[in-house]
C-alpha cells in the first residue's frame, strides 16, 4: 500500500470519527414520510402562523415519541453494534505450554471471533509481549521482544529490549503490516505500557527502572524529541504505574492530545492521576494531580468496589472500572451485583453501575482489611474486567464472569461475543493479551 493510500485511509477514518455514536439523533417514525431539508429550508424564515402551527405539531410528535418505545431502535444484528470496534488483536501462543512464546498476533473480528490475519513477530525478536489499541480501530501498538525466560517478560530488569511497532490491518486484502516506530528500543528495565495520542503525534511510554523508580517518557512523532517525568530519590521508590496491570488504559491520552492519565500505585494511595505534558516540570508526582482514589475501596460513600484499575474516558467526563457492590450485611459469601462502575470525573461520585448483573464472588477472593474489602487472586480468569471503552464511555467491552462471557455493552444492552479460551483477557500473570 502506498503512502498516499495510507494517508487517505487514516484521514477519512479520523474525519468519520468526529461523528460519535451517542450523537446520532434518534429516528422519529413520524418524520419518515417527510424528508428533512433543514439546511435549505431555514434560510428563509417562515411566517409566524406557520411557526406556531409547527410548534404545536412538534409538541404532539414529541409527546407521542415519549409515550412509546421506538420499534427496533435497539435491534442489533449479530454482526455488530454501532460504535464498537470491529477488530481486535491478541497475542497467540503457538508453542507448548500454552502460555509461552507468543510468536504470533492474530487479528480477529470482534463479533464473530474469526481470525482475519496472522502476523509473525519480526526478527530478531521472535515474540510479541505487548498489545495496545489506538484511536484508529484498525491500527494497534505492539511490542516485540526476544523471549525472556524470566517470569515477568517485558517487565524485568534483566529482560530483553522491547521494540515498538504499529500494526495496521487492511480489511480489503485481509493483511496486517508492521511498521517500526521511530523511537529507541526499550532496554534495561520494565516497559509497563505505552500509548499513542489520538492525533498520533505523541507516544507515551511508562517504564519501571532501577534504581530511579517509575518514569513516563513522551516522544514526539515521527522521530522527534523525548521528555521524561520521573521521581526523585526521596520519593516513593516502590511506586508504580498500574495496580493490577490488567487495564488497557493504565496509561492513556485524553482527547486533547496533551493530557496523560495514568494509574498511580504508590503513596499516599492508588488512584488516577492526570499529567499535562505541555506544562513545566519533570517530576511525575508533583507535575500531576490525583482525580480519584480508586482501588479496593471504590469511591467515597459508594459501596461499589473497583476490582481492577479504573480509567478515565478519553473525553475526560467519566471514570470507569469493573467491580461489584459490597454489602456488609451479606457477608463475604453473599450475593452481590457485578458490573462496570461509572464515576463522575469531577466529583468522584458513583453515577451508575452499567451492565449490572447478580452474581457472587468466590469466598477466597475477598478479604477484609482496614481499608475495606480487598480482592485476592485465586481465580484470575473469573475477575470482572473492563477491556475497552469508547471515548465517551457509551460502548464498553468486558467480562464479569471470566473469558467465556466477554460482551459488548451499549445503550443498556449486552451482546456476548465469541471468545476463545486461548485469548483470555489480560491477566496479571498471563502473556496472552488482547486489545481493541
Amino acid at each position, binding site marked *: 500500500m*502506498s*503512502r*498516499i*493510500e*495510507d*494517508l*487517505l*485511509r*487514516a*484521514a*477519512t*477514518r*479520523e*474525519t*468519520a*470519527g*468526529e*461523528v460519535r*455514536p451517542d450523537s*446520532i*439523533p434518534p*429516528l422519529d*417514525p413520524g*418524520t*419518515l*414520510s*417527510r*424528508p*428533512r*431539508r*433543514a*439546511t*435549505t429550508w431555514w434560510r428563509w424564515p417562515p411566517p409566524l402562523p406557520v411557526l406556531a402551527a409547527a410548534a404545536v405539531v412538534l409538541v404532539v410528535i414529541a409527546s407521542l415519541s415519549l409515550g412509546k418505545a*421506538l*420499534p*427496533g*431502535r*435497539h*435491534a*442489533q*444484528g449479530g454482526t*455488530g453494534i*454501532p*460504535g464498537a470496534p470491529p477488530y481486535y488483536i491478541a497475542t497467540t501462543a503457538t508453542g507448548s505450554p500454552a502460555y509461552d512464546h507468543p510468536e504470533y498476533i492474530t487479528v480477529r473480528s470482534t463479533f464473530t471471533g474469526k481470525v482475519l490475519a496472522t502476523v509473525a513477530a519480526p526478527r530478531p525478536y521472535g515474540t510479541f509481549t505487548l498489545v495496545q489499541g489506538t484511536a484508529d480501530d484498525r491500527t494497534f501498538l505492539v511490542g516485540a521482544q526476544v523471549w525472556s525466560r524470566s517470569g515477568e517478560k517485558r517487565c524485568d530488569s534483566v529482560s530483553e529490549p522491547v521494540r515498538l511497532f*504499529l500494526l*495496521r490491518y*487492511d*480489511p*480489503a486484502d485481509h493483511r496486517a503490516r508492521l*511498521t*517500526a*516506530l*521511530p523511537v529507541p528500543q526499550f532496554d534495561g528495565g520494565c516497559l509497563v505500557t505505552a500509548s499513542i495520542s489520538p*492525533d*498520533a*503525534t505523541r507516544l507515551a511510554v511508562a517504564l519501571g527502572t532501577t534504581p530511579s523508580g517509575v518514569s513516563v517518557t513522551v516522544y514526539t*512523532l*515521527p*522521530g522527534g524529541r523525548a521528555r521524561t517525568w520521573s521521581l526523585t530519590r526521596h520519593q516513593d521508590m516502590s511506586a508504580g504505574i498500574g495496580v493490577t496491570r490488567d487495564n488497557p488504559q493504565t496509561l492513556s491520552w485524553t482527547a486533547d492530545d496533551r493530557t496523560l492519565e495514568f494509574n498511580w500505585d504508590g503513596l499516599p494511595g492508588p488512584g488516577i492521576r492526570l499529567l499535562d505534558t505541555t506544562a513545566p516540570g519533570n517530576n511525575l508526582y508533583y507535575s500531576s494531580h490525583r482525580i480519584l482514589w480508586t482501588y479496593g475501596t471504590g469511591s467515597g460513600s459508594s459501596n461499589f468496589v473497583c476490582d481492577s484499575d479504573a480509567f478515565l474516558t478519553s473525553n475526560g467526563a467519566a471514570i470507569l472500572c469493573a467491580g461489584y457492590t459490597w454489602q456488609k450485611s451479606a457477608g463475604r459469601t453473599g450475593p452481590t451485583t457485578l458490573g462496570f462502575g461509572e464515576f463522575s470525573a469531577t466529583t468522584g461520585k458513583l453515577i451508575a453501575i452499567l451492565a449490572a448483573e447478580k452474581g457472587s464472588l468466590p469466598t477466597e477472593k475477598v478479604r477484609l482489611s482496614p481499608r475495606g474489602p480487598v480482592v485476592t487472586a485465586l481465580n484470575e480468569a473469573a475477575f470482572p474486567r473492563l477491556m475497552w471503552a469508547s471515548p465517551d464511555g457509551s460502548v464498553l467491552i468486558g467480562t464479569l464472569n471470566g473469558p467465556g462471557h466477554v460482551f459488548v455493552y451499549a445503550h443498556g444492552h449486552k451482546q456476548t461475543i465469541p471468545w476463545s479460551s486461548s485469548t483470555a483477557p489480560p491477566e496479571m500473570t498471563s502473556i496472552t493479551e488482547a486489545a481493541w
Partner: protein
Amino acid sequence: MKLLPGREDHTTTPGATASDATAAVSALYAEHALGLTRLAQVMLGDRSAAEDVVHDAFCGLYRRWEFLTDTGKALQYLRSSVLNGCRTALRRGTRPAGPVDVDLTIAASAEHALLTSEERHAVMAALRQLPGRQRETLVLRYYLDLPDAEIARSMGIRESTVRSTVHRGLASLERILTGESS
C-alpha cells in the same frame, strides 16, 4: 442512481404494511445511521448537512419499502441514496471549508506512517477538490474498504471504471498534496 431490483417492475412485497416498514426502517436506522452519517461527513465535511442527507435516505427507503423484493439490499440502497444526497448537497452549495494551506511533503519512508492533524486536514481538503466520481470511489475504497464490485453497484458504474477512477483519483490527490501542476 441504480434502483433496487423490483423497483422497475413495481413488484410489491406481499403483506407489507406501514407498520412493517416503520419497524424495519427503524431497525435499519439503529444499525446503520452512524455508519452512513460518518460516510456523509467524510463526503461533505458538514455535520448538519450529513444528518440531513442520511435522514432523507431513510425517508426514501421508507417510501419505497413496499416495492422492495430483496430487503437484504436495503443497505446498498441507503448507501447509494447517501452518495446521491451528498452530490446534490455539494451542487446546492453546502460546501465544506476550503483547502488548508500547509506544506505537505509525501514521505517516502513507511516508517513515517503516522498522521498529524495538519496532514489529515490537508488530505481531506485535497479529497474534496477532486471531481465527484473520483472522490466517491476513493471514499468507498479507502474508507469503507468496499470491493470493486460493490463500489460499482453502489455507484452504478462498471468495475473497470472503478479501478481506473481510483487510479486517477490517487494520482490527482498526490498531485494536489505535493503541489505539482497536472
